[in-house]
């Protein structure tokens, strides 16, 4: 079934690339000078590759996991120095007529290495050494890929947090991740809206932090009394501030927030010393880290991110409408998708994509072509196909007898899901533009091979799940 899903997706991808790169003058789907022709070649090679993967004994993958990882790390390092500069990034290794993107294969190697690590006897995330090992395996390729200026591919590795979660990482981290995104969005989005002398974003984030703290307290404390007191306190401060502002008293809300934070910390300390509950300490840490995070957002946004990244984020948050510049892609992509309607314009009848209004339409923005030509049902259908595949992979992961198999499966799930969410999200204007491909659809051999390897190695492992190690 997984293989069928894979074939459907790859076939749809091929047809979409044909549609996306379709030229009125040059119309053969098999023409090897065209991208659809080349993609067909990649698909053929992928199938051969898949066949080979299935032929190889499953133990090879486990045994040589670190070797694969090592080779890929070396390749990544080499890429930094050897790769030519293509559109500002150095991620392509050019070998004669073909060029490869090692980052695409690094995903597979990292997944394998992680699986092997987790599969070793007595491995536990509770163990600080083991946790460190896992994090190291993930962070090393991230650093190397960032050095190639391929931030998008690097971000993919962050998705492995889902796998870590499945393997026992505290759910708090998922929650923290969500909080960080929300804080960031709110802080940036409302950073230019001023309430008095203070940016509204900061105040709003403070309010969110207070709500989170109170919520966590409510969640952890059995009787919930402390949480209720805290809420009442916040409410009182809120009412007083509102009243003062209503009567025209100039109030620096930031000072109020800092004051409330100090009071909250004091209250939590009191709670800790009376109950000696570690959880209270966790909440305290959460609050403090959140505040630090908040104050670092501005700095990070303005100093760490590059200008084009800042712009893309602002466009995605609807703060800027730079239709000729950073917003052009997304706007054109929305136009293309939006013009598709429910049933689409029909295969090869898309006008926006055909006439090259959407840049990168056969790679990162391939989803536009589907949206325009096949309409809502086609686009939603592709999403559902992916969701089905992901669920299928989760099922496969869960039926593994070994930690190795399970961890590897969840790595594949995480990576696939992240690609889907970010790629489709950016095309429909819900995420900032991050240049990562849509698995199996986007044109490009490296990406297709990378995902083929990821998937078929899993299938190979799954096929031998009952055999002894």
């Amino acid at each position, binding site marked *: 079934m997984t293989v069928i899903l894979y074939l459907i997706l790859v076939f749809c991808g091929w047809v979409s690339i044909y549609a996306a790169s379709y030229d*009125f003058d040059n119309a053969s789907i098999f023409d090897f000078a065209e991208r659809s022709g080349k993609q067909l070649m990649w698909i053929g090679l992928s199938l051969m590759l898949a066949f080979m993967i299935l032929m190889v004994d499953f133990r090879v993958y486990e045994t040589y996991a670190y070797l694969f990882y090592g080779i890929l790390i070396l390749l990544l390092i080499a890429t930094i120095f050897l790769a030519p500069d293509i559109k500002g990034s150095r991620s392509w290794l050019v070998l004669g007529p073909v060029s490869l993107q090692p980052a695409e294969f690094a995903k597979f190697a990292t997944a394998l290495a992680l699986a092997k690590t987790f599969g070793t006897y007595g491995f536990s995330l509770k163990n600080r050494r083991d946790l460190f090992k896992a994090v190291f395996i993930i962070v090393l390729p991230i650093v190397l890929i960032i050095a190639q200026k391929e931030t998008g591919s690097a971000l993919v590795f962050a998705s492995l947090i*889902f796998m870590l*979660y*499945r*393997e*026992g990482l505290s*759910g708090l981290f*998922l929650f923290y991740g969500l909080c960080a995104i929300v804080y960031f969005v709110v802080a940036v989005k409302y950073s230019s809206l001023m309430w008095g002398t203070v940016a509204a974003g900061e105040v709003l984030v403070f309010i969110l932090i207070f709500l989170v703290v109170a919520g966590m307290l409510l969640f952890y404390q059995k009787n919930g009394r402390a949480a209720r007191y805290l809420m009442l306190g916040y409410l009182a401060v809120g009412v007083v501030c509102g009243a003062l502002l209503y009567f025209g008293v100039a109030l620096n809300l930031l000072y109020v927030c800092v004051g409330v934070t100090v009071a909250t910390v004091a209250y939590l300390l009191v709670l800790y010393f009376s109950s000696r509950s570690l959880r209270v300490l966790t909440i305290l840490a959460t609050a403090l880290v959140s505040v630090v995070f908040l104050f670092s957002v501005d700095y990070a946004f303005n100093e760490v991110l590059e200008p084009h990244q800042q712009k893309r984020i602002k466009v995605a948050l609807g703060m800027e409408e730079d239709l000729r510049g950073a917003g052009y892609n997304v706007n*054109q992509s*929305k*136009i*293309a*998708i*939006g*013009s*598709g*309607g*429910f049933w689409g314009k029909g295969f090869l*009848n898309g*006008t*926006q994509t*055909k*006439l*090259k*209004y959407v840049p990168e339409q056969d790679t990162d923005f391939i989803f536009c072509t589907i*949206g325009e030509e096949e*309409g*809502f049902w086609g*686009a*939603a259908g592709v*999403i*559902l196909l*992916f*969701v089905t595949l*992901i*669920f299928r992979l*989760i099922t496969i*992961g*869960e039926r593994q007898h070994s930690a190795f198999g399970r961890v590897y499966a*969840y790595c594949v*799930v995480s990576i696939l*899901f992240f690609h889907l*969410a970010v790629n*489709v*999200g950016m095309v*429909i204007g*819900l995420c900032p533009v991050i240049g990562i491909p849509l698995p199996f659809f986007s044109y490009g051999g490296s990406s297709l091979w990378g995902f083929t390897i990821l998937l078929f190695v899993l299938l190979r492992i799954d096929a031998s799940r009952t055999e002894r190690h």
Partner: protein
Amino acid sequence: MRKDYKLAKRKYVIGGIVLAIACIYIVRLFSLQVLNDDYKQYADGNAFLKKTQYPSRGLIYDRNGKLLVFNQPAYDVMMIVREVRPFDTLDFCRTVGITREQFDKRMEDMKNPRLNPGYSSYTPQTFMTQLSAQDYGRLQEKLYRFPGFFIQNRMLRQYAYPVAANVLGNIREVSPRDMEKDDYYNRGDYTGDLGIERSYEQVLRGEKGVEILLRDAHGRIKGRYEDGRYDVAPVSGKNLKLSIDIELQAYGEKLMQNKIGAIVAIEPSTGEILAMVSSPTYDPSMLVGRERGKNYLKLNRDKYKPLYDRALMAAYPPGSTFKPTQGLIFLNEGIITENTLYPCYHGFVAGRLKVGCHGHASPLSLLPALQTSCNAFFCYGLRSMIDNRTKYKSAAEAFNIWKDYLVSMGYGYRLGIDLPGESRGFIPNSNYYNNIYGENRWSALTIISVAIGQGEVLATPLQIANLSATIANRGYYITPHLIREIQDSTINAEFTTPKHTMVDSHYYDYVVEGMRMAVTGGTCRIGAIPGIEVCGKTGTAQNPHGKDHSAFMGFAPMNNPKIAIAVYVENAGFGATYGVPIGSLMMEMYLNRKIAPERKYLEERMLQSNTIIYSGVKKH
């Protein structure tokens, strides 16, 4: 193991997150693709270059099928500034017949945002309009040497006769207001201005077609969309056949030369307008082509207002042409019979009030009163009606009934002719007088001059002609109109339905008889045409602007009338001096197609005469 079991549950959390994101995305897709329509329009604007195919405008014929208005091709030189490459400017100038200085001036004007607000270096701009056919030919040959320039075909109107400008109207480029009111129009389109061109714009213009071309992100044309499957061919405008007899019209304009005023001739049985002259007039070709703007300004500033269609816009005191209406009202209300006699002592005298009249027998009845145009008779008649307290409760009530009769005869309101700008004339009602004099503070004597078409009453020449047609029809009229046939369509039902007045049909016979007597032995004697029983009524309207206006109303032949006419010549004196001759010549020309030798002198006199000098308008 228990711990593992607990962790295994986390697959639901992960699955849930995947599902949630997928749902959000699908909802977003649904709102983008199905709920929101804007993106489709953006997409069309993006990718389609809709090239308009202009239809040819409908042709206009006269009642006898003579072609009056047709189309001539014209050529505009367009340019897309961004695509212009260095070229031989002097050669270009020579080809299109302009000097180097004019070239520079045109470029400057084109780029001037005040003169050309829609300027963009990316879109086609008009460099110069209406190239002559010779220049077009030469430029077409050399066009390849001037990249960025191209020629756009346009249709201009051409007129076969230099007459009937007030009827035909003309076309002009649409204004921003036109575009706002009707989104059919785009910048640079033409629309009817004045006359038939305006009132039948919807029919004449046809339907624009469109050719859908595909344009890529760089603006290059990549072919036709779906091989032209969605292209729409333009639909030519429909041809019109007017009721105008162009020869009669031309004759009328000739007779009216050097005079200010109007002629309206109607075929009584159909309400069709045979001729509608407004003088002074202009050659319709003046408002075509490159000189249009200049000429329009000139006509607009002309002190004699040639653009003002006096035939239907000017409200004049109808003078004695009003008297037949009075006779009809009095008869129908039972105020008089055909035998009622009123005295005339060189006028109507009541206390200190006196309305003058001229010498004729006294006392007299309705028919001789019409024959001699006796003022006193109608003043007595109006007094008998308004001051009749046995029949009417008050003067106001009587007066309102009087007014209703006139409205039923087409006075006081627009008749509804198919031309823009018609005036409604003026018939007062009792409120009007109440406001001036106070309620019950006025009587017949206060308003007595309305009985002879003076005072407050005003009528357009069209309304007077319509009265004539009504009398000719013995009691009904059909809304006067200019349209006779619309190609593949029917004309407005209004223009075929008879409208009966409030006066009984048989009373009209007396009035017809009276008007016949006026020609055989009364004020209209000079209008007698050999072999034709002409009926007529003169009018000499006093006015505050100087010499009396000369008016005539009549029809012929008396039985089975073919033409009813009204003539109004400003400041020309007695009705018999200009009104009757012009009116009778028109009728004679229409009925006989020639002027009898013994009446040639009359024609000559009319052609030679000049009354414009009495108009009080000083030339410069």
